């Protein structure tokens, strides 16, 4: 398990980002803002995982030919996981943007209460 290098600060950052994201998704009425809040929330998860990989005094996890056998490496696995998570996040954003474009073309608004009014007609 990795050790905490920078204290608890980056975990606090992840928690704050997560809450900002959730707040935006639940409270904002504009769908584009909701989507941006969703991205902020996904960044929070990435910050959390990357923080897990940190090791005090650790080097990047690349094998150096000589004399580095005892070096402490940062844990590469969370980075690899987060590369995948970033791909997922980009795809989700892409699909969501495509949906937003279709909504805007049809209804000329991205405001949720107004949209729901139009849908009820």
């Amino acid at each position: 398990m990795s050790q905490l290098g920078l204290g608890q600060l980056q975990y606090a950052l992840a928690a704050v980002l997560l809450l900002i994201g959730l707040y935006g998704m639940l409270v904002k009425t504009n769908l584009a803002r909701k989507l941006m809040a969703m991205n902020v929330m996904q960044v929070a998860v990435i910050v959390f995982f990357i923080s897990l990989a940190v090791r005090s005094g650790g080097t990047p996890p690349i094998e150096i030919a000589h004399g580095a056998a005892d070096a402490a490496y940062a844990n590469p696995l969370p980075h690899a996981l987060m590369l995948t998570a970033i791909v997922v996040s980009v795809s989700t954003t892409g699909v969501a943007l495509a949906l937003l474009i279709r909504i805007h073309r049809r209804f000329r608004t991205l405001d949720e209460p107004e949209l729901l009014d139009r849908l009820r007609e």
Partner: protein
Amino acid sequence: MTQHLPILIVLCPLAAALVVPLVARVSARAARALTMLATLSSLVCAVAALRVALREGDWHYHLGGWAPPWGIEYVVDPLGGGMAVIVALLATLVSLYAGPHVRGLSSLRGAAFDSLFLLLTTGLLGIALTGDLFNLYVFLEVSSLAAYALLASGGERAVVATFRYALIGTIAASFYLLGLGYLYALTGTLNMADLAIQLEAVPPGSAMTVGIVLLVVGLAIKMAVFPLHGWMPDAYTYAPPPVTMFIAAVMSKVSAYALIRVLFFVLPAGDAVETARAVLSWVAVGGVLAGSILALAQTDVRRMLVYSSVGQMGYIVLGLSIGNAAALTGALLHVVGHAAAKGCLFGAIGSLPRQTVQAEIGGLAGAARRAPLAMAAFTIAALSLVGLPPTAGFFSKWYLLRGALDADAWLFAVVLLVSSLLGAVYFFRVLEQVYFVPDPSAPDTDVPSPASPPSWRMVVPVLTLGAAVLLIGLFNGVLVSSVIQHALPEL
């Protein structure tokens, strides 16, 4: 070849999904044939792998020869393999059912539809088979992304509903991912079997509790359990019929499977899991009652079916929250039975000719005359959801009831019975229209109405599922003793 069966189950639809758009440029017919072939071969592989697993014990397949916990493994056990068979069977039937729908699209759109459908199948099969928590997350997102695109193809209302679904789905996935991060930080492994062993040694603490809560909440949102189902009615009602049929039948079941897998096979038994199950049981009771009552209030058949799904998912959650052998057997039997029944119901409604089907229940008047076979299957599936013998629904409810009584949970038993009664009311309202109210468009009821009967491509899958509902009911003893019994966790 045969030693690679577990990965072939997932690879068949994945490879076909990539090739179908290219093939469609040459021949749309070939692309359709390829789609059906891919789902069918996936089904054959799944059945073969499950048979081997039942005969010789769980089948662990190491991807690329890397042994777990470092490599990713696929596990065909009675639970996961059985789930894969259900998904592959539904996918095969729906790929046939989708024929008339795809033919109505341009060749580009038709290819996109088939490709997305295959990707959705890939994701769901992957969830069922993977033995790695992070791999499960990836498949969860593969299936979700494909589902967003498919649901949104149903027009403007569906697009708005799908956007809301995408947001909620992403919150769920992020919670799941965070929970997984906590478990990884505690143990340094992502392999399910390895996690289960290592977590036993971890003393319960706040990190474990937070991880468990995040995992359970994430999967529960994906299942669209009761208070979190808001996106479902619009998305399912306006999506194209084959999409609704497939997604309503298997998607939430696969999430339910993931929840069972995590709760009973990965997380260590303890206070946190007990509490999670207690909370889930109240969510389930709310879902069962609210789903049944809201279904009563609907005038649109498809909306009624969606709310009935909310209630039926409640049964499954109730079964796993009670958590004794009988209740879990009931929950798993209900997963199988409800997948067949809901696919059949949505399929039958979707097979009625566009110009005659009114979404309103009243629009079904005389439907039995226009589409007798589809409506016969519809009736069987409806009786199964109400819980009449000898259909599958009766026996799964029977097991659930026995589980509730074994656990002295009288309240749950009452809830089960009351909601069955409500189910009878809302389904018989529909059946009355289908069979006893004459078709208003054809006043002389002896003359069949001029609308063309549904295509055989749509009728055959619907009939197959209707027959499956009956067979699962009649042979529930065999199913339980040969598969489900072995799929239960050690209690």
